[in-house]
C-alpha cells in the first residue's frame, strides 16, 4: 500500500464513521406501557408445550357482544375433577391477554368456572385447561365486539 491509497482509505472510513450514528434508527424506549403478546403469555403458562384442541372443553360465550366491557364467559370441562388442575381464560388481542386463572381442587366437585371479562375489540377467546398429568387442552371461540371495553 502506498501513501496515496492509505490517505484515501482513511478519509473514506472517517467519513462513514461520522455519518453512521445519524443513520441508526431512534431506539429510545417509549414511556407508554407495552402490550403483552399472546404467544408470550401462552408460553408462560404451558412452559413451551403445545395445547391440543379438544371437544371436552366447552367454552360458552356470546357470538356477538354489544358491549366489550362486560362479556359473560363460561367454561365447562367434560373430565373428572381429579384430572383438572387449572382453567385459564385468555383473550388474544387484549392489552393483557391473560384474563383469569383458576386453580381448582377435588373439593370443587366439578370443573366449571364462569365470570365476566373485558374485550378491547373483536377477537378470539381461548379456554386453556391444565390437566394433572401436565398436558394442556383448549377451546377457542371468536367473539364480535361493537364497543371496546379496555379504555
Amino acid at each position, binding site marked *: 500500500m502506498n501513501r496515496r491509497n492509505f490517505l484515501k482509505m482513511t478519509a473514506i472510513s472517517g467519513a462513514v464513521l461520522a455519518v453512521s450514528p445519524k443513520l441508526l434508527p431512534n431506539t429510545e424506549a417509549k414511556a407508554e406501557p407495552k402490550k403483552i403478546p399472546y404467544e408470550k403469555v401462552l408460553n408462560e403458562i404451558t412452559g413451551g408445550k403445545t395445547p391440543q384442541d379438544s371437544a371436552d372443553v366447552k367454552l360458552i360465550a356470546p357470538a356477538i357482544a354489544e358491549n366489550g*366491557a362486560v362479556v359473560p364467559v363460561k367454561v365447562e370441562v367434560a373430565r373428572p375433577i381429579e384430572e383438572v388442575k387449572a382453567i385459564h381464560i385468555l383473550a388474544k388481542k387484549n392489552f393483557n391477554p*391473560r384474563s383469569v386463572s383458576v386453580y*381448582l*381442587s377435588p373439593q*370443587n366437585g366439578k370443573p366449571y*368456572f364462569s*365470570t365476566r*371479562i373485558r374485550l378491547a375489540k373483536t377477537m378470539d377467546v381461548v379456554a386453556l385447561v391444565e390437566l394433572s398429568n401436565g398436558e394442556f387442552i383448549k377451546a377457542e371461540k371468536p367473539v364480535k365486539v361493537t364497543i371496546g371495553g379496555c379504555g
Partner: protein
Amino acid sequence: MPKTALIKVRPRRYKKGQLVRIDSVIMHPMNTGLQKNKKTGKIIPADYINDIEVFYDGEKITTIKPTQSVSANPYISFYLKADKEAPLKIVWKDITGDTTEKVIKIKPKG
C-alpha cells in the same frame, strides 16, 4: 377500605354431598391503568383485584387470579361439594393492598 361483597348458594336447599354452585359479586371499579379521566386528562391509576382465595372449613380449595381484563364488579361462579357443615370464606385482595372478606355458612339439610 373493604368493599361490598355478596355470596349466594344455588340451589337454596341442598342435601349432604350434593354439588352446589357458589355465585359471588364484589363491588370494585377494576381500573386498568390505561384509561384517562375525561375532565382532567390524567390517567386513572391501576386498581384491580389480582387474588381471590376460597376457604371451606379452613382449607383453601380454590385460588383465582384475575387481571385487568376482568370486568368491573367481578362476578365469579364455581361449584362446591357440600359434604359437611362448615363456613365458606372468600377473600378478595387488590393491588393497592385492600382486603375484603366474606363468610357464609354451608348447611346441608338431610
